[in-house]
């Protein structure tokens, strides 16, 4: 065979290879992209038809087009509010300058903007409230779960309490948390808003249970061989926990954390509505109270936003879980 033949044979096989890989890529794209897209489009279609047939006393039930309209309005309002904020600071600077001109030793203060929080501010508030609640819950739940998982006696003692408090709804906790926060958190210059603390603690109380349960199951189901190895090596408890218990329980701990975050995000919206923490829950409640013709559309925008953020949070946790998990063969969804 001469080099030309070999060359053409190689290029032929290369072409076949790239064609094959193209087909594989195409198949994967259809599966991963087009199928979900088709599902979404069909759903939007059904939603639009159903919405145009439901007439409420506040107007037609919002369909996808209303949601799109209202989301554009919310973005415009956000921009307007930012402009107002700039004007506010300009006025404040002028006022302070006048004061200084009158009396160079005058005590001038820079005050924060007094206007309303925009939709995006509210999303941000919801996010950091849920993070606060989630972190508080995690710091309580994981040690508690490890304790109950390692010690059968601790489990027997604590389990009834866990099972009793697990089903309690956030709406039942809220009045109690409000009263406790009001009574205990008294200071002249509060760092945190009471509504923020109330919402955060309510979220924590409701979302710690999935993590506790999953952690204790994960810890309790540690491989017997590992326990024997630790006995042989005479590992001290902290080392044993750090090198064996936690890594082997990570998959279940993360399952618990993901469930907790999802629960926490759901609970947050309810808690915010009642505690009036300025997040998405309060946005929905205020829109409902307003009863304007655009209220339902705006509430629907909030619903979609809540869903999308919940989805993103879950995917973030999933990504974290994949990085931390030692079993790269395990399929994580």
């Amino acid at each position, binding site marked *: 065979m001469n080099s030309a033949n070999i060359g053409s044979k190689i290029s032929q096989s290369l072409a076949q290879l790239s064609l094959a890989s193209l087909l594989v890529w195409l198949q994967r794209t259809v599966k991963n992209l087009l199928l979900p897209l088709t599902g979404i489009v069909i759903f939007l279609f059904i939603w639009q038809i159903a919405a145009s047939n439901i007439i409420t006393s506040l107007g037609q039930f919002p369909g996808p087009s209303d949601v799109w309209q209202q989301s554009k309005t919310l973005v415009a309002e956000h921009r307007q509010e930012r402009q107002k904020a700039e004007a506010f600071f300009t006025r404040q600077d002028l006022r302070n300058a006048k004061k200084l001109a009158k009396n160079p030793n005058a005590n001038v*203060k820079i005050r924060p903007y007094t206007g309303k929080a925009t939709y995006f501010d509210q999303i941000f508030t919801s996010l950091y409230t849920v993070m606060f609640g989630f972190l508080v819950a995690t710091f309580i739940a994981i040690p508690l779960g490890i304790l109950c998982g390692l010690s059968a006696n601790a489990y027997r003692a604590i389990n009834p309490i866990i099972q009793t408090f697990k089903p309690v709804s956030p709406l039942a906790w809220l009045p109690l948390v409000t009263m406790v926060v009001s009574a205990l958190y008294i200071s002249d210059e509060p760092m945190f808003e009471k509504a923020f603390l109330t919402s955060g603690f309510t979220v924590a109380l409701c979302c710690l249970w999935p993590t506790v349960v999953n952690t204790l199951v994960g810890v309790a189901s540690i491989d017997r061989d590992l326990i024997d190895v630790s006995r042989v090596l005479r590992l001290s408890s902290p080392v044993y926990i750090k090198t064996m218990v936690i890594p082997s329980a990570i998959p279940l701990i993360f399952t618990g954390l993901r469930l907790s975050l999802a629960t926490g995000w759901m609970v947050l919206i309810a808690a915010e509505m009642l505690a009036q923490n300025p997040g998405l829950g309060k946005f929905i409640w205020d829109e409902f109270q307003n009863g304007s013709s655009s209220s339902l559309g705006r509430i629907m925008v909030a619903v979609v936003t809540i869903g999308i953020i919940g989805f993103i949070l879950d995917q973030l946790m999933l990504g974290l879980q994949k990085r931390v998990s030692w079993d790269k063969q395990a399929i994580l969804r």
Partner: protein
Amino acid sequence: MQFSKAHTFTDRLFSCVKVSLTLALLINGTTAIAELGEPEKDQLRFGFIKLTDMAPIAVAYENGYFEDEGLYVTIEAQANWKVLLDGVIDGRLDGAHMLAGQPLAATIGYGTKAHIVTPFSMDLNGNAITVSNNIWEQMKEYVPVEDGKPVHPIKADYMKPIVDKFTEAGKPFKVGMVFPVSTHNYELRYWLAAGNIHPGYYAPHKGDSSGTLNAQALLSVTPPPQMPATLEAGTIQGYCVGEPWNQQAVFKGIGVPVITDYEIWKNNPEKVFGMTKEFTEQYPNTTARVVKALIRAAKWLDENDNANRPAAVKILAQSNYVGADYDVIANSMTGTFEYEKGDKRSVPDFNVFFRHFATYPFYSDAVWYLTQMRRWGQISKPKPDQWYFDVAASVYRPDIYKTAAMELIEEGLVSAAEFPDFASESGYRAPQKEFIDEVVYDGTQPNAYLKKFSIGLKDEVL
């Protein structure tokens, strides 16, 4: 702000002259208001309920009147009247849009006890009573008609036969109002009693705070934004509430406003701006400045025969204030009021913010609310006249109002003629005759007033 560095002698001279000229002008311009000092607390938080008569607060913010006084105010909607009152009492809110009865009830200890004062009356009128379509259809049989339209005012007498039918059938006739010490509660009761329908007594000394003792119509509490929903659901047959919730019922086609409180008592006091006594004592300059800004806002709202009302409605339609549709709010704030759908009548004084000395906290207004609290049993024992005068004097603060007003007159922002004559004003209005049942109210004789009603407690204890 950067002041340029002067390098040469002439530059320095010029800047000296500039600064001293500015100083001279500013000092001369400010000696007149040197009396009222800087606000002690400049970051304030005010609460309100989503009703159109929170307008003075919104306007004072949006038009920059608060900022002119050096106040940085955050305005927050509250979930309901109880949360609002608790917010003021525990200090979360520095002041709030309140029902006229709230400072009085809190100070005498009906409900949570706290000494709340009010230096500013926010408006007159602004409420209406709406009934469900069903009840209206039944009432139309009895309501006199002229030129095809019902004759106003529609007295509760025309509703009495329907209430009697409900009683005979054993069904409760339920009506909603917004708070046990709300103006709406007292106006509703006044209207019902004038039509010979008993609205029930309170007996707090016996532990009964439902207000339904001996009642033919059962009154219950619902927060204003939820009123149309409860009417639609059939939980109540009617309600008394402020705007935009009556016009909202018309727009949604679920109810018909039958009477406004303007027709029950012409130019009745409605909302006040309440603060704790501690706040007014700890921060007197701040309080006076808040009142100044609110007076300016009230004046703007009524200026030039309500010319600014459309602009005010635009502000109120923002989602962080009242949030209802522009048209719904405009329906009652721009000089008209819609009763039955399509029956829009001219009511230019449906909301009065500044005219007729609306912002002055008259003692006789406080005494009226106290008499109605006594009439319905919220004050369980009869009280001597002096008690009424003392409570009114401890809650209503025309002295703070006067300080603010004098400042505004000096600054030339409001003329002295637009205020009552402070030298001679006693705080008690002349006897008022324009009530729906034509009983004359003289604030200086509360017990004699109570004796004039056929339904209502006089000297007895339940």
